């Protein structure tokens, strides 16, 4: 693998770009690995990378049923932020944001992390009070870049919003995190894959786990579409397919439901929006940013009912279009270019799981929904730590499967055990 350096890029430019090598190998599966990670999304790949780099584990495979990044890793709206208020979440997401800040260097791959600010619109004095409380909490717990903007500041920064005084929800200010922003999701996938591969991780694509063999409280082998693989330790990081693998391992129910989330991208426009803008009011939910290619990238709520189909429904399309028009009426004649949906794991409190399981050598990374892209560096970091050391670090101790039994949910939204209400 050729490293990216200014000299290499220049030299390849002069010599017809013919000297680059493959970004990662395409090895044949071995019969045995010390650690097998199921799921070649961002969480699986990041875990493999930190296991190899930080913990020196040598014999690792990542099994992906399709192609890496074909799941939610390549389907999300790429928002990265750490403005959470619940203990547990706020430290975790702040750690992730710090990892994003150095990720291009770390991986020797440009993930195009752009800290362009996350601007959450506020529409009532009560909302300003609530946002101030969150933001004071952030400032007191190590996230220094929280701000509340008044209307004149907001108008100067984001001039194209609908500021009409007779709007259904007039805008009166915004809660802003300035170090938040977006990153190129595919680049993050390829960067982690390339860096993991360079440290000897086997990335096995078109390798679907179809059966799981157990010997009492341990997993002994995985039956895959590319043959039987025995494993010392097994780690699940399969996003919306968690329940399917959990049941394959004979483990029963989980505090998880599979739902789908849609995203949209418009035709490319000249620079229009410099920030990530979020609108959430009266049941509406909408977030938008502009990609480096100029497309407006946006999304909204879940489809409101459980689904395994990676295919979105039309009422959400209408819902999102209405929200777009109410916030940015200038988009009215812009054409939609593409629209897709991804299968996310909605947990009963909207938060994730990075934890041990009832089986000795099985580890779980699951429950990611709206926040799983921004979380991926920290998720990989701490999941690798858990797999290598076999004990949960304080950072992830709250995120286990037993938190509902303890009565200690991490419910940012306060929506209770109803997956479709979290977001």
């Amino acid at each position, binding site marked *: 693998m050729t490293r990216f350096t200014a000299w290499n890029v220049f030299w390849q430019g002069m010599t017809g770009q013919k000297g680059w090598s493959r970004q990662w190998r395409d090895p044949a599966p071995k019969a045995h690995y010390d650690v097998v990670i199921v799921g070649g999304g961002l969480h699986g790949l990041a875990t493999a990378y930190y296991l190899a780099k930080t913990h020196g584990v040598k014999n690792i495979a990542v099994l992906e049923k399709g192609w890496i990044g074909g799941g939610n890793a390549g389907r999300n709206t790429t928002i990265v932020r750490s403005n959470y208020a619940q203990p547990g979440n706020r430290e975790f997401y702040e750690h992730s944001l710090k990892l994003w800040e150095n990720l291009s260097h770390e991986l020797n791959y440009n993930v195009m992390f752009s800290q362009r600010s996350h601007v959450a619109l506020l529409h009532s004095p009560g909302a300003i009070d609530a946002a101030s409380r969150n933001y004071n909490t952030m400032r007191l717990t190590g996230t220094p870049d929280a701000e509340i903007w008044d209307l004149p500041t907001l108008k100067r920064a984001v001039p194209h919003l609908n500021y009409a005084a007779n709007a259904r929800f007039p805008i009166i200010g915004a809660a802003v995190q300035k170090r938040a922003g977006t990153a190129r999701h595919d680049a993050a996938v390829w960067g982690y894959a390339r860096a993991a591969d360079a440290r000897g991780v086997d990335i096995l694509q078109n390798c679907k786990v179809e059966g799981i063999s157990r010997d009492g409280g341990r997993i002994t082998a995985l039956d895959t579409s590319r043959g039987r693989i025995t494993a010392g330790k097994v780690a699940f990081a399969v996003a919306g397919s968690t329940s399917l693998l959990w049941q394959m391992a004979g483990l029963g*129910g989980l505090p998880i*439901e599979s739902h789908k989330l849609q995203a949209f991208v418009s035709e490319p426009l000249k620079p229009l929006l410099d920030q990530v803008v979020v609108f959430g009011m009266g049941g509406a939910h909408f977030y938008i940013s502009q990609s480096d290619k100029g497309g407006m990238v946006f999304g909204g709520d879940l489809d409101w*009912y*459980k*689904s395994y*189909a990676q295919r979105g429904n039309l009422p959400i399309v209408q819902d999102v279009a209405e929200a777009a028009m109410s916030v940015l009426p200038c988009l009215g004649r812009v054409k939609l270019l593409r629209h897709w949906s991804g299968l996310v794991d909605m947990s009963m409190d909207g938060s994730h799981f990075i934890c041990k399981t009832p089986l000795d050598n099985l580890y779980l990374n699951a429950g990611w929904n709206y926040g799983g892209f921004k979380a991926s560096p920290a998720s990989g970091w701490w999941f690798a730590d858990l797999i290598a050391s076999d004990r949960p670090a304080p950072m992830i101790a709250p995120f286990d499967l037993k938190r509902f*039994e303890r009565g200690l949910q991490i419910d940012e939204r306060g929506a209770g*055990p109803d997956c479709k209400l979290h977001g």
Partner: protein
Amino acid sequence: MLRIACPFCGTRDHSEFSYGGDGSVNYPALDAALEAWHDAVFLRDNICGRQVETWQHVHGCRMWLLVERDTMTHEIFSVRPAHAGLATVLEATE
């Protein structure tokens, strides 16, 4: 768009309904052990395929229904009132 054949109102777009959740959950007795309540409230089989689920016809008759749907293909196999015998009771009092 899913279309749900409400036994009281006829076939309507699903946007008239509100999704309840997994209809196979059996809630335990009020004084049952905490574990039984934990399992009913928090744990799901999260079936990929045919599942029985609850929907409420909020913009129609407001009845709760049990809908048998494939969670992958969205095919609907059956719709019936959530409370057994309700339809007969309603007819009897008419």
